[in-house]
């Protein structure tokens, strides 16, 4: 065999170190939950960098809260698809029969009424809704932290994501456990000292204030814990940016 030139030796050494380094980084990132479900494809590299950076730098950070005098006088209720028949039926009954199901990887699957949710500790936060389109408003959001409900349900340690579903067809989204257990992630029942208006997601909306508005899905009826996520959609899964 021909002896390797110094240049070839250095180049192949660097290449091997690079491959090994990448593999190690990939393993560490996977173990610490730094890889988003949409890590593949042309935009996967950028998305993974964004998600990993945010999880390393902002995991426990609290969304900015505002003084009461900064609550927007003219909040904007983004348009939603016409209410489904199921929604209209529940609305006619004053949402008395609205149920929130917690299932999947939990020790105690639950089905909660709005009255059940109201009996849980009530918190409020004055945070900004930020739409990916560019507009925003500040409102007071009143509800119960999702983390308390998850504790009651006993989320299994292997669960990595929460999927949540709207009563509206084909409207769901998901978050990682860092956001699921975050103290500002609310099951929201009220807004600005009143009931949560239908236009803003009433009777029940999941508020995820550290992410863009599209993660705060309206009219929530089911939350399910899972350990795997098959990403589909046109918009980035992580919407903290």
């Amino acid at each position, binding site marked *: 065999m021909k002896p390797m030139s110094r240049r070839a030796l250095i180049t192949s050494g660097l290449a091997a170190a690079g491959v090994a380094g990448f593999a190690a980084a990939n393993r560490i990132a996977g173990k610490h939950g730094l890889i988003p479900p949409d890590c593949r494809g042309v935009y996967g590299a950028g*998305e993974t960098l964004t998600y990993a950076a*945010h999880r390393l730098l902002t995991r426990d*950070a609290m969304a*900015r809260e505002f003084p009461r005098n900064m609550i927007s006088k003219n909040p904007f209720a983004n*348009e939603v698809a016409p209410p489904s028949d199921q929604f209209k039926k529940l609305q006619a009954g004053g949402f008395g029969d609205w149920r929130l199901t917690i299932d999947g990887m939990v020790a105690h699957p639950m089905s909660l009424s709005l009255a059940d949710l109201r009996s849980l500790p009530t918190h409020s936060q004055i945070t900004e809704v930020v739409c*990916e389109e560019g*507009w925003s*408003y500040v409102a007071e959001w009143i509800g119960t932290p999702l983390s308390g409900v998850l504790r009651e349900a006993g989320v299994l340690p292997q669960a990595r994501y929460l999927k949540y579903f709207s009563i509206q067809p084909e409207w769901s989204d998901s978050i990682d456990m860092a956001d699921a257990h975050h103290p500002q992630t609310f099951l929201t029942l009220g807004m600005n000292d009143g009931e949560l208006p239908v236009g803003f997601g009433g009777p029940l909306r999941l508020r995820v204030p550290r992410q863009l508005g599209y993660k705060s899905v309206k009219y929530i009826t089911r939350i399910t814990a899972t350990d795997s996520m098959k990403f589909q959609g046109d*918009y980035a899964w992580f919407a*903290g940016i």
Partner: protein
Amino acid sequence: MENPRHSVLVRVTHWLTVISFVALLVTGLEIVISHPRFYWGETGNVNMKPLFTIPIPSSRNTVPTGYGYVMPDQNGWSRYLHFESAWVLVLTGLVYGIASLLNGHFRKNIVPERGERTLGAHWRRMVQYLRRRPPGLDESDSYNVLQRTAYLVVIFVLFPLVIWTGLALSPSFNAAFPLGVNLLGGRQTARTLHFFVTWALVLFFAVHVAMIAVSGFWNRMRGMTTGRTVSAEQTAATKELV
């Protein structure tokens, strides 16, 4: 190669910057179409008075534009590509910035030379441009004071500002570093400034390309790509020979 016009580092980072800047510009304008209204302060939406509105149609039917139609929504891939390009730009900028500090590129080629750091020196050079005097031979291997100041402003003011105002639009980043957005005066101010700084960069880009066109487009492109140029002396010598 003996003394290339631009070092390998400058050439590679220059073209990576061009590619990411163009991608950021196109996707950024695409995102603007979903809400071509700008505000000042923390909040802003269609129920509030805008600072100004761009008279273009929107990709959302919730935005009153006066146009009878709605553009297709391209925000999904635009946002993906915008942030991916931002990573390329930031990482490229870090490599260029750190290397240029260490190897003296900033000190030797970008910071105006001693004795030239006056308004008068800038003005004299400007007059030369305005009178369309051709550059002297002494300028063929070095940047003049106007170029240096322009590059200095782009590298140390405009790019940092556009990155800062962009980061201030991230609700998650703002949660960790609230000072970033609060110092700017709120989220909508950050968005409006992000838009203005973009136009400042576009203005630089336009003038930069125009000057290159004036001074010999393909020769300059060659200089930034292969490092080699045909110098004025060589051109003159060739002509004499012919």
